[in-house]
């Protein structure tokens, strides 16, 4: 598991700095000026085998002031629709808070979808082909001893079988009583997403889809296993990398995280975010 290995490489640098105790981090302020104006698109088409009329959601927002600590401005008044390969149009209805939803989309594995957005006189577009995902074979709880970087406690583990004949990219979302569990942790890029380069075709046992989340008895934990395209994987990898800086000199340099959203009106005024189409597999477990 390449990314797992690399995860610990990153950790060890932190470790060295911690060990030698000479490192100190202080909160500081710097003058940042006005935030730039960019549309942020979080677009997801998700399909579970055997289901119909799942609710699809496209979230639109913009960039906010870094130090203001308020919800970033929502992008309202947009016209949002998705077309499929046979040019069927599915309109997404605005929910006032930057969410646009649709429940009539019919998904098919390997079908190509196009997202269209008209917002403030600019037209945006993104194309993605739906990716398949293997099912979660087992879900269960496992107690993990703590160490310098991970909390001790009950964690959720899954087994799944990676298909041998294709390249697979995974993204896991973990929910506690329907609430998404995620922290801006440097380890995310090697934990909640993964590629199968070093375990292609193997059965993976006891994978923690979220190493940061510790659960209590009674919690209903749901894991969503999402099949990503390679492009989407690279996007999320970069996103989690940029969100999980440690301040150490081994950090990768800051860069803009570019996804697949194209501005047709003015290409230089690019939008952020990604539009993916994925098969998902869900499993739940109640912590004992």
């Amino acid at each position: 598991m390449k990314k797992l290995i690399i995860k610990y490489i990153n950790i060890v640098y932190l470790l060295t700095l911690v060990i030698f105790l000479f490192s100190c981090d202080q909160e500081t302020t710097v003058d940042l000026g006005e935030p730039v104006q960019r549309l942020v698109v979080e677009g997801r088409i998700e399909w579970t085998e055997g289901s119909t009329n799942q609710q699809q959601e496209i979230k639109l927002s913009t960039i906010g002031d870094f130090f203001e600590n308020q919800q970033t401005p929502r992008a309202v008044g947009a016209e949002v629709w998705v077309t499929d390969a046979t040019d069927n149009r599915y309109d997404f209805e605005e929910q006032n808070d930057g969410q646009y939803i649709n429940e009539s989309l019919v998904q098919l594995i390997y079908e190509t979808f196009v997202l269209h957005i008209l917002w403030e006189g600019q037209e945006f577009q993104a194309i993605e082909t739906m990716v398949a995902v293997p099912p979660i074979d087992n879900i269960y709880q496992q107690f993990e001893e703590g160490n310098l970087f991970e909390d001790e406690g009950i964690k959720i583990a899954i087994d799944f079988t990676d298909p041998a004949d294709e390249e697979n990219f995974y993204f896991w979302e973990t929910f506690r009583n329907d609430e998404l569990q995620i922290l801006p942790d440097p380890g995310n890029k090697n934990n909640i997403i993964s590629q199968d380069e070093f375990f292609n075709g193997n059965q993976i046992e006891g994978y923690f889809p979220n190493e940061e989340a510790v659960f209590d008895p009674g919690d209903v934990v749901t894991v969503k296993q999402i099949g990503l395209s390679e492009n989407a994987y690279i996007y999320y990898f970069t996103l989690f990398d940029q969100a999980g800086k440690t301040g150490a000199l081994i950090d990768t340099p800051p860069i803009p995280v570019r996804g697949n959203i194209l501005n047709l009106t003015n290409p230089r005024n690019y939008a952020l975010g990604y539009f993916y189409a994925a098969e998902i597999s869900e499993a739940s477990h109640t912590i004992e």
Partner: protein
Amino acid sequence: MKRTIYLLVFVCANLLFAQDNYTISGYVKDGNTGEDLIGATVLMKELGTGNITNVYGFYAISVPQGSYTLEVSYVGFQVFRQQLEVNSNQTLNIDLAPDTEVMEEIVVTTEALNKNVSVNEMSTVSLTSKTVKNIPAVLGEPDIIRSIQLLPVITSVGDGSSGFNVRGGAADQNLILLDEGVIFNSAHLLGLYSAINPDAVKDVKIYKGGIPSRYGGRLSSVLDVRQKEGNLKEYSGEGGVSLISARALYEGPIVKDKGSFMIAGRRSYGDAILRALGESNTAYFYDLNLKTNYQINDKNRVFLSGYFGRDELALGGIFSNGWGNTTGTFRWNRVISNRLFANLSAIYSNYDYSIDNLATGAESRISSNVITYNVKADFAYYLQGENNLEFGLDQKWYTFNPAEIDPLMGSNITASKLDEKFAVEQGAYASYHAEAGNLLVDVGTRFSRFVRTGSQDLPIYENNAPVVYNTFLNRYEEGNVVGTRSYGNGKKIKEFNNWEPRVGLTYVLNQEQSIKASYNRMYQYLHLISNSTSPTPVDVWAPSGEFIDPQMSDQFAVGYFRNFKNNAYEASLEVYYKDIQNMVDYVDGADIIANNQIETQILSGNGRSYGAEFYLKKNTGRLTGWISYTLSRSERQVKGFGEGDTGINNGDWYATNFNKLHDLSITGIYELNDRWSLSGNFILASGLPSTFPEGRYEYAGIVIPHFEERNQDQLPTYHRLDLSATLKRKPKNGKKNRGEWVFGLYNVYNRINANSIYFIEDEENPGETNAFKSALFGVNPNITYNFKF
């Protein structure tokens, strides 16, 4: 080739002309220990012609028949003078007597020399391990690479970074040689300390420019470290204990005045303290230096030296990581005739790392190494007066093993191995040193050849483009592989042939002033691919080949050198301009570890740097030290391939990670009395370039800082003061034992100098984003005990 022929003709003419002369040659040694002295000045007083001893301590001067005063001088030693009646070739080995240990009075008897004015060399600095030990250091651990960073235009990307940057060059552009063996990673503990034990070191010299033609393979600098040979006269030892490590050295004769050995070791013990505190984690380093030599007769001497350094990090039961350099050098010095000196070397060098991942279910090991075998021959032919010719040949065989992955403890990780890469690097050089009145000239060239060989299977990319720009997604992507080309064992894949001219001029205005100029072109065939701010031990060394062109630099420098008050003060002002082509840079989001097609992750760009360096040094008296100030700029440009693709920062020039507009450092050592000495250094520098966010947005349940162009902002100004005091133990009559205590205070006024400023969402308070500055080394006291026996 033509140029070589001209050179040969010139040399032959000189040889004929030189027939009426006689040559005085030999070695200059430390009279107490028998160590060869590098760079000692040997002068024929009446003629005003002289030479300096080479890196093996050898000199030769050709003079017409006559009677002369020979004068030999070296810093820290008494001047040697002898009347010579020259009427035949003579071998004259000279033992210099060290300045008497100055116990009663602090009159430093050494005559200051004007070498910096009169020698045709610029942009170089030498350090002795004594100076290194006198400079205040983090946790009292004397450190060569940290010490050289106090010199003009040698910087780093932050406290505790691996590697250093010279005149705006990248960290992989420094050739670090330990007894001629290449050291690939100069850092211990990820950059807290350098990999070289200062006790074992005789001489350190760094070339920032005007690099002689005998060196090649890196663009920006040469750090040439020579280990001690070992005391030829008697057994002795030294050592030290600091808060971080313990070190010891023992040396002595094998056969008195004929052969000797030196063995030195160092180990950090931070891990022992941690273990005592009940942690199951560990981080330590150790290194071992060995050297032995034997003088077969007056004409032949052989040396065997070795270095072994290693770091180990482990996080109890989850992970362990080790890396290190190993080098071994066999050398044979032969005085072929009075005029011709030869050195033959065979060198082995290995840099390797391994990472053990012990996480349940994924137990595995990644290992990687670079092995170099090197043979070389260097010759120095001494002509009339100061004129001489240096020439030589050099051949290296490289084997790169980028990564091998093996399962551990029966895990279900698939074993795999990336393609091994093979290359041969050859160099041939000739350099002529001439004196014409007040003008000293060094003119030479190096011819370098680099050949990538099989066996290897290389991918064929569509349109021969390993990296393509996706205009739809606006990013760089791996090129499409359309086929594979197989190369058999030893079969040539790609070849590069390059000339590297080097010129150095000195015009001596008078005993106290000179003007110097230099030009050098360098090629570099190995590239360190790193996508972090500072290199890490697990970065990948990639050789040039089908997809990666060699890097090239041209550097011009001009300087004015001036000494004052009978050479008590030396000052210099140098300006330089350096142009670099084909510097490698990674694409945004590059995946470099265990990647078999590293060429798909990199772009190539150009660099330029220019600046002025001012250096003032006080050599004698109770107070010694130096002030160095640099005004410089270091920039990079990465253009796009074409349509829609704008490169990095729209293809504009932008500041490198190590660009410092102003950089001032002051180092002073004050001898208070015969027991106490005080030293201090102060550093004031512009903040390094940084990238601050243009706002933030919410995505996938977390908050992401949004960045646009690289390095458009700046960290706060860096400044720091360090002090230390050394107390020598009272000398006991007749006893050799000497000890000294060093008390230090690093970062006296506890300045929190930002190594970086980073922007993250608070894990405890989702939705709240903050900026943090990360700093290493607040105020910290230290104590070290050094001893000799």
